[in-house]
């Protein structure tokens, strides 16, 4: 009953997906702006970055029990979530401001120093946005699938690959001023996907022989349990291996499809990870107790009004 709704749900997964992708996009935008030149990333992509982060934050707010009080999450500087909230705020602001430099006729179009500073900041905050969900989850000692440093890498890499994929798609819709970077993205993405593959397989293996039984139980879902199809079929095959192959081909269509698959894979991955958060450090007898509680729709709970 209520115990089934105790945990973070799909809205968190959507939030992680959008902020991860947006954060990854922001890193790429920022790095491109710092080390290449502004304009090598699509304007659409530049605006999409802070937009996606905002969408993610929007879902975060909707997930709250009292969304209208959302402003309160900025108040406890010791909490990871608070730091994340501030950071997202900065990321959205700087991302929008940086992207605005690409709008024709914008008044501050030639304030180059500001643009460079913003690019730098975008890289930093983008990295934080891309990484901090992993950091947040990895901090949870109570959740055996999440706990530990490994998940940080998984989130970072996922943010980067979805971010780059989104830039590829944005570039296909609205070309950047120069296509030099865009042309290298498929190769870059393919490389990162190989890394993603290695990291995931490694993570699963490490968890399987984890320090506690609980970790092995949690990861069993992924190997041959409830999440196996989504993991092997979805994230690994369709979300990593297939796009990897497609990106090594020369056709632009193949690249586009590959990028799309990577993005879908990223969404799927976030959903699976959040789902896996249902596994807790169960106490003796607890699961049996919870399994015997009513569902919530039983007549005896609703027939009498008191």
């Amino acid at each position, binding site marked *: 009953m209520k115990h089934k709704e105790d945990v973070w749900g799909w809205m968190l997964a959507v939030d992680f997906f959008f902020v991860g992708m947006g954060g990854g996009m922001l890193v790429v935008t920022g790095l491109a702006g710092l080390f290449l030149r502004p304009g090598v990333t699509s304007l659409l992509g530049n605006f999409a970055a802070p937009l996606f982060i905002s969408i993610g934050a929007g879902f975060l707010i909707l997930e709250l029990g009292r969304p209208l009080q959302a402003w309160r999450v900025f108040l406890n500087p010791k909490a990871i979530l608070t730091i994340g909230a501030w950071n997202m705020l900065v990321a959205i602001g700087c991302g929008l401001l940086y992207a605005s430099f690409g709008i024709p006729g914008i008044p501050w179009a030639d304030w180059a120093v500001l643009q460079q500073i913003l690019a730098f900041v975008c890289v930093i905050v983008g990295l934080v946005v891309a990484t901090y969900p992993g950091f947040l989850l990895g901090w949870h000692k109570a959740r055996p699938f999440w706990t530990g440093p490994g998940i940080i890498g998984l989130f970072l890499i996922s943010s980067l690959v979805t971010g780059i994929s989104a830039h590829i798609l944005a570039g296909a819709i609205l070309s950047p001023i120069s296509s030099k970077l865009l042309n290298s993205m498929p190769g870059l993405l393919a490389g990162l996907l190989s890394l993603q593959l290695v990291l995931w397989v490694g993570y699963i293996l490490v968890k399987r022989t984890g320090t506690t039984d609980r970790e092995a139980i949690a990861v069993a879902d992924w190997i041959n349990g409830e999440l196996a199809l989504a993991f092997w079929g979805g994230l690994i095959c369709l979300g990593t291996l297939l796009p990897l192959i497609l990106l090594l081909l020369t056709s632009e269509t193949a690249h586009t499809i590959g990028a799309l698959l990577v993005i879908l894979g990223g969404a799927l991955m976030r959903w699976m990870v959040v789902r896996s958060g249902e596994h807790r450090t169960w106490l003796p007898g607890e699961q049996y107790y919870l399994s*015997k*509680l*009513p569902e919530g729709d*039983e*007549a*005896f*709970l609703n*027939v*009498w*009004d*008191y």
Partner: protein
Amino acid sequence: MEKITLTNNLALQHDDVQVKKSACFFCHQNCGVLAYVKDGKVVDIEGDPDHFTNRGGLCSRGIIALKNLDHPARINHPLHRVGERGEGKWEQIPWHQALDEIAEKLVKIRDKFGPEAVATAGGTQRTDDWARRRFMNLFGSPNSFHNAHLCWIPTFMVETAIYGWCPFDMDLGNSRCLVLWGHNPGASYMPVMRGISDLKDNGLKVIVIDPRFTETAAKADLWLPLRPGSDAALALAWLNVIIWEGLYDQQFIENCCVGFDELAQHVQGFTPEWAAPLTWLDEDLIRQGAHMYANNKPGNIQWGVAVDQIGTPAGAAMHARALLRAVTGNLDAPGSDLLTGPSPDFITDEEMEANEWLTNEQKAKQLGSDKYKLTTWPGYGRIAELTREVWGKAPTAEWMCEAHPPTVFNAILSGEPYPVKALITLATNPVNSYGDSQRVLEALRAVDFLVSMEYWKTPSAMLADYILPAAGWLERPTITSTYGCSDFVIASQRAIQPMYERHTDYQFWRGLALRLGQEEMWPWENLEEAFYYRIYPLGYDISGYDEFVEQYRFHFPEREYYKYARLGFATPSRRVELYSSTLEELGYSPMPEYVGPAENEIDHPEVAEEYPLVLTTGGGFMPYYHSEHFQIKELRFLRHEPQVQINSATAAELEIEEGDWVWIETRRGRIKQKANLTQAVHPKVVVTQRGWWYPEREAKEPGLGGCLESNTNVLTSIEDEHCDPIGGSWANRGLLCKVYKVNGTMEEVN
């Protein structure tokens, strides 16, 4: 209303909050409850820290009292049936009209069929039973009954026949060994369990005799998981060991008993080796138990209702069990089971019953008294005579001397030996709690006139012609005195006057009495007056009942051990009768015979072929009490479906998994409960939960709140052959059954 944190201390600081010393009667522990009353409403309750029974504790049942008090499904006004019986159509009428009409109807029935055609049914000890008996005696009917035959009463009477009173008051503080025979205080009597834990810390040995590994068994020193219904064999084997291994109390037997030699000869063959295949216990374990009890003296045997519920062998089993105290001298000695006797100090229940007003002619008509003599007028009359001779008073007749319920239901249905035309039920949901629910349902549907005084529209109440709203424990004063047989009294007051149009059952009986020419016999206008009358002889300086509650609360006489030295035992020989002349007089065996379980694989192999598993049922479990509390959401949430315990290996053979709905079937019928796979029971034993019905469904016909769907009494038996010939107990436990999965979707039981 705003939630106020109230504690005893804080409440005293609020001028407008009164603290009332009430008592919960959701079970017989009658824990003290402080009720905080403001503006005539109970705003909070808590366990009374000054009440010695619970010392501030209060279990989940007592705690929800305020959810119970004004629950939307409570009956608050008198109702008269319009439409067909069970249709669920009612008109609300005033009390005086209801009583007028009921009285009129009773008179008509009496004039045509005799007063014996009116019967009353009760359930657990809940009501002012002495008032009920008073009314019935004056009316002329001998046919009142409760679930007495399942609830300690036959044990009380057998033990009183043997040693002159029932030693239910245990001197546990000085005890070294406690035998819990078919009793699980860990799930039913919370304060008793606390006491046991405390005493275990001081070295008390605890033996649990129970087919289930219960909460109490888990904390025992020794657990004897006997075959359900085989208690007679176990008790006889213990007698054999104690006598033939020389563990008996020589001095007590010489000075206080008769019939030892006969008993010794009688039990010679009942060795542990003989008992082992009958009880499914290892002979060494049987011996170990007997040794532990006999060698750790003083010791106690706590009664539980299990042995009263095994049907055919019940009398023999409780007889043999009773003799254990005698041969070990564990009677009225410090640390043992005390023969406190009835109280000489206050007016007992029996003295309020007006038994002298029932003529012998009418007594002879008591249904079942021709067969089941011990717990009806023949046996009760003789025993009351004996106790009056020695103690000066008699046990409560309403409980100890009752019509045999199955015989009454059969009389309703068949008109034999004479027709019963009216049934008044209070504090009972008969279709739920009496044996063979289908038969009971038939009887409730068939009886001409059915009146129910109730809290809830139970399936039984739904079949009534009149329903009257009953006051609960916060709305009435309560005297705790163990079915009227204790030498102590614990008094509790009402927190508030009954809400809406509810009344106490005393008011019901008195109301009828005034209309039937009995007014002189009912001078007390309310319970406080009646209770004051009863405790007045104690000699406290009080001018009313509430004053006694507020200032004194309890009366415990000084403990006197070895009273028999002064009085003798209330038996014909004035000794403990190991060879019982009273039982012999009544036509029963003077010494316990071996009787096998009501349905068993040895005596009934053809039944066992179709029904290979052994059923036991009826044990209490939290947070319910019989059919109560299933409509309290806070409790139902914790245990919302009926569960049947079945051994994991047996379940695997039957392809049953944890949580599957399964049918449990006996020769009487079948019910469905959810399988709980466990090692807590023998592979051949199955344990169904009692009490289950579904108040969230409409209790009217045809569904009747699912009262036959998961109700364990569909499985039990009231057949003549399954009733104990001595006390009349019908068979709830030790029956043969089979279990199989419910296929497909949930089918309704018709």
